[in-house]
C-alpha cells in the first residue's frame, strides 16, 4: 500500500530529509503544469517548481497533517509564481512588445484559439489573434493574470482563488473581472466572430 503524503511529511519532520524526495516525485509534474500556465516559460517554471518545494520544506512544520498536501503545495506554487511575476513585471512589459514584433516568441504559444477548420486565411487570422491574446495577457497585472488563469483556464472557484491569494471573495471576483475587462478592451476590436454591433456604453446595474 502506498504511504500517504501525511506519513511522508511526518517522516521528514522526524529527521529523514531524503523522504522528501517521495513528495517531489509525486507532485512536481502537476506543480509544473500549474506554474507553466501562468509563466508560459519552461525554464522559469522549473526554477519556480524548485523554489516551491524549497519553501514547502521550510514551512513543513506548519502543514496540518489532516490537510491535503497537494492543495497546500498548490497554494505555495501559485504564490511563488505571483512573487516571481511581480519581480519580473518590468521585464514582462518589455516581453509584451517583443511578442508583437516576434510571432515565434514563446509567450505567443500561451493560448490557443478555437480553430475548427484551419484553412490558410483562417490560420493567418489565428496567428494574428494569438499574438494579440498573448499581448493582452501580458498587459494584465500579475495578480490579474494569476486569478484569470485560475478561474478561466483551471476552472478554480472564486473561493479557491480567494483562499490561495489570501483575498476576500469580492476582491477575487473583482480581480477576475478586471482581467476580463482588459482583455476585452484589447481583443474585441479585432474579434472575427460573435454578434456584431458597437459596444454599449453607460450600463447601469439592475
Amino acid at each position, binding site marked *: 500500500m502506498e504511504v500517504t503524503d501525511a506519513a511522508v511529511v511526518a517522516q521528514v519532520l522526524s529527521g529523514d530529509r531524503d523522504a522528501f524526495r517521495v513528495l517531489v516525485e509525486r507532485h512536481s509534474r502537476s506543480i509544473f503544469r500549474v506554474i507553466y500556465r501562468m509563466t508560459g516559460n519552461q525554464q522559469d517554471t522549473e526554477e519556480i517548481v524548485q523554489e516551491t518545494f524549497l519553501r514547502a*520544506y521550510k514551512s513543513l512544520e506548519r502543514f496540518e497533517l489532516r490537510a491535503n498536501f497537494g492543495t497546500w503545495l498548490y497554494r505555495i506554487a501559485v504564490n511563488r509564481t505571483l512573487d516571481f511575476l511581480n519581480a519580473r513585471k518590468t521585464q514582462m512589459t518589455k516581453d509584451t512588445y517583443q511578442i508583437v514584433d516576434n510571432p515565434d516568441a514563446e509567450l505567443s504559444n500561451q493560448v490557443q484559439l478555437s480553430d475548427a477548420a484551419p484553412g490558410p486565411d483562417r490560420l493567418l487570422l489565428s496567428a494574428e489573434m494569438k499574438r494579440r491574446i498573448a499581448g493582452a495577457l501580458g498587459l494584465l497585472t500579475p495578480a490579474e493574470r494569476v486569478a484569470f488563469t485560475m478561474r478561466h483556464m483551471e476552472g478554480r472557484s472564486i473561493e479557491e482563488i480567494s483562499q490561495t491569494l489570501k483575498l476576500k471573495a469580492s476582491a477575487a471576483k473583482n480581480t477576475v473581472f478586471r482581467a476580463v475587462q482588459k482583455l476585452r478592451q484589447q481583443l474585441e476590436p479585432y474579434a472575427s466572430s460573435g454578434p456584431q454591433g458597437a459596444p454599449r456604453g453607460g450600463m447601469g446595474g439592475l
Partner: protein
Amino acid sequence: MNHLSEEQIVLHYYGDAEEASEIERHLAACPECRAEFARVQSMLKQIEPMEIPEPSAAFEEKIWLNLRDRLPVKGGIFRGLFGPQQKWIFAGVMTLLLAGAFLAGRFWPRPVQPIGQQPAQVNPQRVVLVAVSDHLERSQMLLVEIMNADAKGPINLSSEQAEARDLLDNNHLYRLSAQQAGDPQVARLLEQLGRVLAEIANGPSEVSPGDLQQVRHTIQSEGLLFKVRVVGSEVNSRVRRPESLSGGSVNQRL
C-alpha cells in the same frame, strides 16, 4: 429598465454572479444585454487553455538533485537546540566558540610570506569562470567516455553515473551564475547539459546497447559535445586572458 453591468455579465458567464436568477430573467427579456453577454462569451471562448510541454523523464530527479543539498535536516538532535530555553544555551556555546576561534587566530603562529609573493586580489567573476571551465572540461570528458563506450552486451555505467551526479550538483549553480552574469549562451548550454547529465545520472547503472544508443542519440541530436567543446574552449581562453577580469560574455564572442 436598467441594463446589466459589464461586471454582472462577466461574473454570470463564470457562474459567479450572486443574483443569477435575476440576471437570467433579465437576459431573457433584454436583447441588448443578451448580445452583450454573447460578445463576452465569444471573446472568452477564444482563449483556450494552452498546450503544456511535458517535462523530461528525469524531471523529478533533476528537481530533487538540485534541491537536496539546499534542505537542512529537520528534527533529530538539532531540534532540541532551538527550543525556547535551549536557544540561550546554544547562543552561549556559539559565543564561546567564536571567542575561542578569534583568540586562536590571533595567537596562532603564521608563516611569513616573502615580499612579492603576496596573494593577488581574488576576482569572484574569475573564480566562477575557472570553475565553469573546469566543469565543462569534466563534462566533455564524461560525454566522450559515453560516446566511446564499448557497446557490446550489458554496459556498466556506474562510474559515469557517479561523475554525472557530481557534475549535476554544481551545474545548476553555474547556470544561475551565468544567467546573473548576463551570459545566456553559457546558461543555455548548461541547461542542455543538465538535462543530459540528469538522464545519465538517473538511468540504470547497467544498460543495454539500445539504452546506450538512446543516450548517445540525445547527445548527438543536440550537438552537445560540440557546443561543450566550443564554449569550454572560449571560457578557458577568457580565464587565461587578463582582460577577462572586466567581464564580457561568451555570447558576445561567439
